[in-house]
C-alpha cells in the first residue's frame, strides 16, 4: 500500500503547489453520482437523478454532472474508483451499501470529495448525509388516523433496516396522537422495487380490512391498487398524484436537490468540510406533496403538524413512548438520542407485526 500512498501524496503535494489550499475556490465543479438502481426507477435512484438535474439547472455552466446507474452494492468499489479517477470533484454515492466501498476509495483519493447517503461513516474527505423521512411519516399517521374509518392502516414495507422501522414507528406515533387505539398492519416485500409484489401486498392488506395504505417501497402500484378499490393512500419518494388523483392524500417527496445545491456551492466557494448530517423537513431535503382528498379540518391539522415539526415544537421521537412489549422507552419529555434512532430495531406500541431480531 505504501508506494501507492506516496505517489498519491506526491500528486497531492504537486496540486497543492499550484493551488494554495487543498479545498480552494473553484471555477467549475464536476459532480458525479453513483446510483444503486436505474436512473429512472421511479423511486429512490430517480429522486437522486432529478436532484442531479436540478443541480445542473441551478448552476448552469459552472457545474457539470455525470452519473453511473444500476451499480450492484456487491461490486461498487470499482465503479466508485472509476468515477474518482475520471476527474470528479465530488462523488455522491446514494445507497447505504456503498458506505464501505466509498470509504475505501476516499482513502485512496484524498483530493476528491465524497458524499455518502444514509450511512454513518465519514472521513476527512467523506461526508454522510441522510433525511429524517420519519417526520413525513408522522404527518401521514396523523392524516391516516383522522380519515380512517376502520382504525387500521396497512404499511407496505421494503426491507427491515432502521430507516424503515423508524418510518413505521413514526407513522403509528402520528396516528396515535389522533386515535390512541389506531393499529397498523405491516407486510414486508423484501424488495425495494417490485410493482407486482407491491400490488399483491396492497390487495392483501385491503382484504384484511385496512382502509388506508402507505408504502416504503418505490413503485406506484400500491397507490394504483388503492385507487382501484376506492380507498386512500400515501405516495412515496415522489408526488404520485397521477397514479391516484382521487386517492393520494399526500406523499413524502425526496428533494435531495436542496442538499446537493448546497454542497456543490461549498465546493465552488472552497468551504466544503466533512460533516455527518441528518436533515429534516425544515432543511428542504424532504417535502410533503399537496394535502389533497381530505376534509378541510384534516388538512388544517396536517399543515399544523408540519409547521410544528418544522419549527421544532414537535419532535417525533419525544416521550412518553412505549415499546411494543409494553416497556417504557422514552420518559415524558425525553428525546431519543440520534445514535439510538439511527440503529433502531424495535417497534413502538400499536404495530401489529413482529420485527425479526
Amino acid at each position: 500500500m505504501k508506494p501507492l500512498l506516496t505517489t498519491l501524496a506526491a500528486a497531492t503535494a504537486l496540486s497543492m503547489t499550484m493551488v494554495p489550499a487543498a479545498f480552494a475556490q473553484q471555477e467549475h465543479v464536476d459532480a458525479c453520482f453513483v446510483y444503486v438502481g436505474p436512473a429512472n426507477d421511479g423511486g429512490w435512484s430517480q429522486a437522486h437523478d432529478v436532484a442531479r438535474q436540478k443541480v445542473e439547472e441551478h448552476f448552469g455552466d459552472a457545474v457539470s454532472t455525470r452519473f453511473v446507474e444500476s451499480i450492484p452494492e456487491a461490486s461498487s468499489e470499482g465503479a466508485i474508483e472509476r468515477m474518482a479517477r475520471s476527474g470528479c470533484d465530488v462523488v455522491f454515492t446514494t445507497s447505504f451499501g456503498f458506505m464501505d466501498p466509498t470509504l475505501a476509495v476516499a482513502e485512496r483519493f484524498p483530493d476528491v470529495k465524497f458524499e455518502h447517503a444514509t450511512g454513518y461513516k465519514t472521513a476527512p474527505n467523506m461526508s454522510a448525509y441522510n433525511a429524517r423521512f420519519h417526520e413525513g411519516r408522522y404527518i401521514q399517521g396523523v392524516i391516516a388516523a383522522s380519515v380512517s374509518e376502520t382504525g387500521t392502516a396497512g404499511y407496505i414495507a421494503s426491507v427491515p433496516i432502521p430507516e424503515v422501522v423508524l418510518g413505521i414507528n413514526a407513522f403509528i406515533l402520528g396516528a396515535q396522537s389522533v386515535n390512541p387505539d389506531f393499529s397498523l398492519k405491516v407486510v414486508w416485500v423484501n424488495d425495494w422495487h417490485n410493482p407486482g409484489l407491491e400490488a399483491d401486498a396492497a390487495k392483501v392488506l385491503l382484504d384484511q380490512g385496512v382502509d388506508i395504505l402507505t408504502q416504503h417501497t418505490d413503485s406506484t402500484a400500491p397507490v394504483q391498487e388503492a385507487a382501484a378499490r376506492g380507498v386512500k393512500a400515501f405516495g412515496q419518494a415522489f408526488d404520485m398524484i397521477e397514479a391516484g388523483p382521487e386517492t393520494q392524500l399526500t406523499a413524502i417527496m425526496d428533494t435531495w436537490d436542496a442538499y446537493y445545491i448546497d454542497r456543490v456551492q461549498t465546493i465552488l466557494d472552497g468551504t466544503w468540510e466533512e460533516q455527518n448530517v441528518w436533515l429534516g423537513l425544515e432543511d428542504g431535503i424532504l417535502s410533503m406533496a399537496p394535502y389533497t382528498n381530505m376534509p378541510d379540518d384534516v388538512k388544517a391539522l396536517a399543515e399544523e403538524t408540519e409547521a410544528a415539526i418544522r419549527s421544532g415544537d414537535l419532535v417525533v421521537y419525544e416521550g412518553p413512548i412505549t415499546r411494543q412489549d409494553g416497556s417504557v422507552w422514552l420518559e415524558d419529555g425525553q428525546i431519543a438520542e440520534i445514535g439510538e434512532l439511527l440503529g433502531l430495531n424495535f417497534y413502538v406500541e400499536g404495530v401489529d407485526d413482529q420485527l425479526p431480531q
Partner: protein
Amino acid sequence: MLESILLTIATAATPLLLAALGELVVERSGVLNLGVEGMMIMGAVGGFAGMILTGNPFIGVLVGVALGVALSLLFGFLVLTLATNQYATGLALTIFGLGLSGLLGESFIGRSSVRMPVLNIPGLSDLPVIGRLLFGQDIIFYLSILIVIGVTWFLFSTRQGLKLRAIGDNPQSAHALGIKVLRYRYLAVMFGGACAGLAGAHLSLVYTPQWTENMTAGRGWIALALVVFASWRPFRVLAGAYFFGAVSIGQLHAQALGLGIPSQLLSALPYLATILVLVIISQNRRLTLINTPASLGKSFVPDR
C-alpha cells in the same frame, strides 16, 4: 373477502400461466427457451407503449404480443436455423430483452395509464364467490383459460399436435417420416413468444398498469419452473400457476396477520413448496418419463 382473495390469486397467476403455457408448447417441440423473462419484459414494454401511444389497451396487447414474437424469432433463427446452444442463447436473449426494453421504455416511465377494462359476462358475473373470479375479469384472463383448453386440445387431439410431440421426442425419426421439423419448431417458438408477450402485457396493463424497468421481477423464471412442475401438461400448468399464486399471496396474508414468522422464510415458501410438489410428482417415474420431451434442449439439423 374470499372472492377478493381469489381474484388476487388469479391476477398473480395469470401472467405465470400464460408464459408457462407458451413455454410448454415450445418445450413439447424439443426446444428449451430460457429467454422467457426477456420476451415477457418486451411484451410488458410493448403493451404499455402501445396503450399510451394509441390510448387503446387492446392495441397495447397486440403490440406486446408482437414484440414477444419478434424476440422469439431472433431466438428461433439462432437455435433453429443456426443450431446454437439453446441454454446459452436463451440466457443471452434474457439479457438482451431486459436491456432493450429498458432502452425502449425510457420515455414511458412515470406515465399513468388506463387499466384494462373488465368484461362482465351478464348474469354469471353476479354469482356469489366465483362470479367475479370466473366471469368478471379482463380479456387476458379469459384468453389464458382458453389457451389452456386450446393447447390441450391441440397437443392431444390433433394430428399437428401429435407431430409436434413426435418432434419433441425424436426429431430425427420425425424428419425421416417427412415432418418439417424446423417449421414446427419455429411455429412453436413463435407461439411461446406470443404467450410470453401476452403475459408481459398483462403485467403492464392489468396487474400493475405502469411501466418500470425489470418489472417482470423474475416471473419468466417461475414460468419456466412451472412447465417442469406440471410435467408438460397444460392443465397441470394451470394448477401449478394458481398454486404458486396462492402460496405467494398466502405468505403475504400470514405477514399481515402479524404471526411473527421471519418474512424471509415466508417469502421462500413458494419456492420450497414448488420443490416439494415437484419431488412428489417426479417420484412417479412413469408419468414424468412419458411426458418429458426426450430431445429437449438438443439442437436438430436436418441432413439433406
